[in-house]
């Protein structure tokens, strides 16, 4: 009788774990549906908090999948006209003051983008979570009055920047509200806080993101989206080096 109880308990436990894993995968898939798209056009204000003052950089980005991206800085005047092109794992920057295009190398990819908490590397990685991580539900938490699923993500592919992540997903809108990225050693590297979730073209999307490099001092970098358009027609020539000088 005792043996039977144990067996039934084990079966129930394993079924629960399986269900939870299944649920976690479904949650992640729904998150990807909200966060990823075939292509998108963002207009944003990036607020970089320095030691003494903050500055805002306005830009417009055109992206297709996770391989092609083109960004043009619109303000302030000092950065105006600077353009960035990402193709696969290569990145070029055009500076209007020198009228030159330079490829950002491995070493420089680790530098921050215009003094922000984002490195060029961070901007280059944009794959779907379901393609790179296996998720398990770790529990529920309340963030800013909203109920969230807490998911532990473990990398399922080798070539992923963060070995593990922890994300807090709004249980109703399926949008991450907080994201923590960890190194292989378990060291917390980055934290992203997402807020101001709005419905855009039938999907929930966070309009404000705060990136914080946890190894660095400072208040982090705020990324405010002022306009988001999904599934737009973006001409192919935009993703060529020639477009940088136009």
């Amino acid at each position, binding site marked *: 009788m005792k043996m039977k109880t144990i067996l039934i308990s084990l079966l129930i436990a394993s079924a629960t774990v399986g269900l939870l894993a299944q649920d976690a995968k479904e949650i992640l898939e729904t998150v990807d549906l909200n966060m990823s798209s075939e292509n998108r056009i963002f207009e944003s204000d990036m607020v970089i908090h320095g030691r003494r003052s903050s500055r805002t950089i306005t830009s417009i980005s055109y992206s297709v999948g996770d391989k092609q991206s083109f960004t043009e800085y619109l303000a302030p005047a000092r950065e105006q006209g600077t353009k960035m092109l990402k193709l696969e794992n290569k990145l070029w920057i055009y500076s209007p003051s020198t009228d030159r295009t330079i*490829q950002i*190398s*491995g*070493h*420089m990819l*680790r*530098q*921050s983008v215009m003094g922000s908490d984002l*490195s060029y590397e961070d901007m280059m990685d944009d794959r779907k979570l379901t393609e790179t991580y296996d998720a398990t539900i770790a529990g529920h938490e309340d963030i800013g009055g909203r109920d969230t699923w807490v998911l532990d993500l473990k*990398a399922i592919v*080798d*070539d*992923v*920047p*963060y*070995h593990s992540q922890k994300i807090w997903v709004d249980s109703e809108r399926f949008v991450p509200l907080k994201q923590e*990225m960890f*190194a*292989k*050693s378990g*060291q917390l*590297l980055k934290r992203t806080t997402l807020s101001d979730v709005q419905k855009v073209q039938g999907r929930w999307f966070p309009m404000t993101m705060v990136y914080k*490099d946890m*190894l*660095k*001092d*400072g208040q982090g970098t705020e990324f405010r989206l002022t306009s988001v358009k999904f599934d737009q027609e973006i001409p192919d020539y935009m993703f060529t080096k020639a477009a940088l000088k136009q």
Partner: protein
Amino acid sequence: MLSLKLAFKNLLGAGLRTWLNVLALSFAFVLIIFYNGMIDGWNRQAQRDTAAWETGEGQFWHPAYDKYDPFTIEDAHAPMSEDILKEVNNHTLAPVLVSQATAYPHGRAIGVTLRGIDPNQEVLELPSSKLPQSNRTDYAIIGKNMARSANLEAGDRLLLRWRDKNGTFDAREVEIAEVFRCDVPTVDNGQVYIAISTLQEMLAMENEATLLVAGEAFEMRELEGWDFKDNEFLLADLQQIIDSKKVGGSVLQGLLLIIALIAIFDTQVLSIFRRQKEIGTYIALGLTRAQVVGIFTLEGGAHSILAILLGSAYGIPLLLLLNRNGISMGYAEDMAFDIPLAEVIFPYYSLRLILITVLIVVITATIVSYLPARKISKMKPTDALKGKLQ
């Protein structure tokens, strides 16, 4: 011999005018030797330091590695063969594994190059033995300039973040075991040295290296899968900088020499104008015009002999003193141009340098003495005797 005697007698007879010319020329002579000696001394020290700290007797590079192209670092690594490992154990080759990382000193983020070196290596002067082998703590050594720019000192902990061979981030704290002093900026600026075994484990590149530094005891031969780069190649940048410094310096030296030579030229023109009767007398006594031109050219050229003697009188003790004590350059705090620069430079005066300088001074002084003296060959002896202006 008579001409020589005559030339020196006339020169010394001119008194202060001669000595002023000689003094100016001697300055140029001493300065040329000093400047080139300093550049040569710097060159020798820089080459010796770079070889001792970085290049050894040459390096074997992974074929994909190019030190000028950071793009190559990611793919430039390969396992070391049994043959290479034997050389490493014999301390004739020092393997170096290179990777890029971000260091976070005191909450700041800075890009650094991680270099894995063998703590037991004896090829380079890097104090790699200061990297203690410990299972619990990872240690690093850094140069003084790196320590200054990152505000670090021995005993401090430094957080490093890097990507392994698959591109996955990892982070770890290391303890600074030693801050070393080195005059080679490329060994110091932005470089963090850790034990190669630790870096191999961090990058998941077991037993791999990016380059191998050959020591004196290494029996030079080809190593399959590695490209040899000799010191001529590795130190080419330094040589080019030194050469450009020499060209820059030669402009200043040339100007000084020209000033001295103009003074000699001027003196010669004046001599020939004022000593027409003397010239006429020489010709009347049976000397050919060419012989008279020779006397005056020799007289002008003799300035250089006197300048060399005078320059030697004060220059030799001065240059020897500088050679013994060296010239303090201060510690190159910024090392901004990646040029090895020792704190004290000891000038090096080679025999070749001295002989070339002597020849330059003598030949140029003789040429500028000859140019005005050519006028003598067109003089009429009778008019010259009368002292008529011609």
